[in-house]
């Protein structure tokens, strides 16, 4: 039997035959058609089937669903059909149609509702008179599933509760229960939703979730399929911040033993920030004023939005490839928590931690604290403060130089003074002060010796003189003078003493020396003996 045949039969308003029973599943299937016209026909047909067919009640949840159909005619026929079937479960849904945009839908709803009012007691009676129906488990479950899943109130609903029994499967799907003091409900968070959460689900967490109730037929369980999760109380970002901070703190990423010392006099400074932001200008101005002796390498970096975190990580890695960079500033100017969020991302924290070059974090304002601040080797409250910290002040350096100048001058003067006084001390030694003292003492030693010497000499001379006198007198006695005195004469010829006649000839001139005076004479005669 084709669908068309069903409609022909229905339109003929003939008493139902056995085949009509078989047509119900087909019509229900048709309510799911993508074609609006098919859905309208299905609704219309279901409404025209006789109420006496108990199976018709299977169609009720589907007709209720069609009350929300995008096509007004489908809604109209679904309302009509529900009025015909007379199931009181439909009334609350029909009431919602009373505000429908189309008048004919509203009219259909009104008519249906009035029929329900009439049929209500009768209906109850009728249910009683019906033969008890025996469902299969599958049918019952399907019925419940349809019932729950077609209820608009049970889709896109928000519910608040405490998270428990958290289980994460290898597939990435997350299962947990949401509970309060009285009850609990199973929840499923599929991976595609879970991946977009910026905080971690933890046992005991108070959350607000949005999702749809679904019945999972194999277990006969209903659960909430979650589309969105928000922390209850704290904002999602705040919570993520706290969670990541606690996690990294536990791992020791913030501990002071990992903090690298900042160089006192950096030569090359890497700055990771936006090249067009206010932060870079602040930093450059301050460094220029304080200590323009450095080379600055700006690494243009995205510091806001989705790409910011990976951009910062890339920049940190890039600077770490340059071995001559002494220190890095990572930062940006102030903004909302969302603006600064990249500095709270785990990959950024780890990149800062892994940097071999010391990093100063400089994010936002004084009061903004980010994860990056905790991991960085030094946290500057603002980009300007980072610039003040990263370089020494030239004025201070002048003072340092001046101090060195004064100290070395004083020290050197002191050394000179020391040597002077040492010299003075040496000069004051007696040898330099009274150099003649020594000589005088020698003199004094010399005097007695001189005296002794003189005495000895005089004595010696006196005795010698006496000796001489004796010899002199002897000599005087023996002298020719005394011989001549005694009357002897001395004859000389040519200044030679004449001792014999052989020394002269006749007529030789001779000289005769007397005791008194001399005579010149001539030899006249020679007498031989």
């Amino acid at each position: 039997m084709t669908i068309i045949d069903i409609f022909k039969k229905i339109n003929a308003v003939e008493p139902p035959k056995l085949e009509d029973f078989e047509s119900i599943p087909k019509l229900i299937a048709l309510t799911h058609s993508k074609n609006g016209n098919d859905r309208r026909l299905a609704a219309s047909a279901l409404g025209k089937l006789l109420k006496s067919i108990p199976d018709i009640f299977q169609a009720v949840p589907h007709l209720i669903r069609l009350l929300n159909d995008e096509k007004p005619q489908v809604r109209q026929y679904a309302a009509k059909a529900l009025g015909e079937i007379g199931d009181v479960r439909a009334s609350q849904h029909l009431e919602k149609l009373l505000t429908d945009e189309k008048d004919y839908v509203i009219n259909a709803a009104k008519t249906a509702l009035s029929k329900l009012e009439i049929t209500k007691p009768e209906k109850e009676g009728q249910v009683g008179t019906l033969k008890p129906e025996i469902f299969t488990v599958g049918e019952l479950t399907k019925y419940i599933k349809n019932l729950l899943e077609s209820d608009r109130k049970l889709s896109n609903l928000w519910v608040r509760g405490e998270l428990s029994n958290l289980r994460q499967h290898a597939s990435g799907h997350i299962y947990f229960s949401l509970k309060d003091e009285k009850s609990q409900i199973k929840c499923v968070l599929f991976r595609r939703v879970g991946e977009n959460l910026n905080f971690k689900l933890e046992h005991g967490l108070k959350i607000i979730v949005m999702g749809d109730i679904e019945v999972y037929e194999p277990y006969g369980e209903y659960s909430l399929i979650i589309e969105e999760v928000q922390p209850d109380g704290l904002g999602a970002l705040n919570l993520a911040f706290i969670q990541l901070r606690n996690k990294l703190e536990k791992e020791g990423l913030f501990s002071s033993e990992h903090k690298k010392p900042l160089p006192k006099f950096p030569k090359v400074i890497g700055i990771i920030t936006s090249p067009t932001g206010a932060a870079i200008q602040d930093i450059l101005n301050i460094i220029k004023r304080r200590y323009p002796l450095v080379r600055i390498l700006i690494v243009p970096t995205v510091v806001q939005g989705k790409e910011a975190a990976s951009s910062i990580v890339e920049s940190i890695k890039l600077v770490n490839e340059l071995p001559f960079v002494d220190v890095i500033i990572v930062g940006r100017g102030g903004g909302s928590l969302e603006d600064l969020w990249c500095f709270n991302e785990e990959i950024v924290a780890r990149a800062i931690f892994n940097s071999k070059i010391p990093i100063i974090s400089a994010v936002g304002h004084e009061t903004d604290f980010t994860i990056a601040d905790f991991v960085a080797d030094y946290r500057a409250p603002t980009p300007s403060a980072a610039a003040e910290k990263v370089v020494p002040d030239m004025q201070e350096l002048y003072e340092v130089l001046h101090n060195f100048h004064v100290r070395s001058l004083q020290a050197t003067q002191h050394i000179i003074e020391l040597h002077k006084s040492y010299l003075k001390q040496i000069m004051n030694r007696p040898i330099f002060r009274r150099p003649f003292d020594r000589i005088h003492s020698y003199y004094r030693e010399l005097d007695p010796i001189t005296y002794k010497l003189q005495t000895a000499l005089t004595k010696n001379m006196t005795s010698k003189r006496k000796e001489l006198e004796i010899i002199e007198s002897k000599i005087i006695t023996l002298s020719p003078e005394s011989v001549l005195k005694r009357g002897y004469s001395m004859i000389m010829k040519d200044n030679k003493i004449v001792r014999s006649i052989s020394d002269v000839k006749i007529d030789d001139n001779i000289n005769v020396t007397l005791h008194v005076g001399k005579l010149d004479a001539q030899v006249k005669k020679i007498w031989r003996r």
Partner: protein
Amino acid sequence: MSENVSFEENLEKLKKIVEELESGNLPLKESLERFQQGMDIIKECHKELETAELKIETIIKKDSKIVTEPLRKE
């Protein structure tokens, strides 16, 4: 003094010189030499501070090579 001696190294040298001078353990001649050295370094440092000019560059990675270029003045 050579150009590549950093400010920091110079200050370190100065510190050492001053300490040596203050210890008073050096002979006079060496003291005077050290003093002269110190004065030269101070002069050098002053010169460095007075003539310093900030060098600003941007670095980017182009085809896995690091490229630096002077900052564009806007």
